[in-house]
């Protein structure tokens, strides 16, 4: 069974430039999460989807971040414009359903803003 696939693996951009991350969850998983992980910290939730509906985006900085999950499968997370403080690893995860089932993570995208 294929795992969660993310691309790109690495991205270096200048501040004020836009950037986008893509995620393909495990087949059949209805729930999709985007997390941000800073060095030496645990992942912090940005947004959660149940199918195509964003059920919790309270942690997403909406002035510069946006996300979508068209057709309830793949998802894209965008930052525009990027700031130096956005440098982090962006992780996508999926689970069968919301609730107490475990989430499976992708490899992440390491973003460096210079």
């Amino acid at each position, binding site marked *: 069974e294929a795992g969660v696939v993310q691309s790109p693996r690495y991205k270096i951009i200048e501040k004020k430039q836009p950037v986008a991350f893509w995620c393909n969850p495990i087949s059949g998983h209805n729930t999709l999460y985007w997390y941000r992980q800073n060095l030496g910290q645990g992942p912090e939730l940005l947004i959660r989807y149940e199918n195509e509906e964003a*059920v919790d985006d309270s942690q997403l900085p909406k002035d510069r971040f946006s996300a979508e999950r068209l057709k309830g499968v793949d998802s894209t997370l965008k930052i525009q414009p990027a700031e130096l403080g956005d440098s982090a690893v962006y992780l996508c995860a999926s689970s069968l359903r919301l609730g*107490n089932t475990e989430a499976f993570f992708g490899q992440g995208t390491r973003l460096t803003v210079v």
Partner: protein
Amino acid sequence: EDQVTQSPEALRLQEGESSSLNCSYTVSGLRGLFWYRQDPGKGPEFLFTLYSAGEEKEKERLKATLTKKESFLHITAPKPEDSATYLCAVQATTDSWGKFQFGAGTQVVVTP
């Protein structure tokens, strides 16, 4: 506010030297506690889910236990390949959407 605190921040072990990692949590109601392993440059890899106090789960040299306030991850006779950062996360019953609240992790290094 829900909180998850892991200790120690870092742990250096000799091969074969058993030890325990701690995850203490504060939630109004626990739906589940999860342990993950994270290797450098990779995403977290699921290890265990614990749901109620007294529950235990085992996988190879790892054993996770749960009380009402904390969870322990015991590493028995570790090998160098057990070197990783171990993360715990909780889900609270007050969150209907199953949010995972992660701790900062314990970085474990096992030397030959």
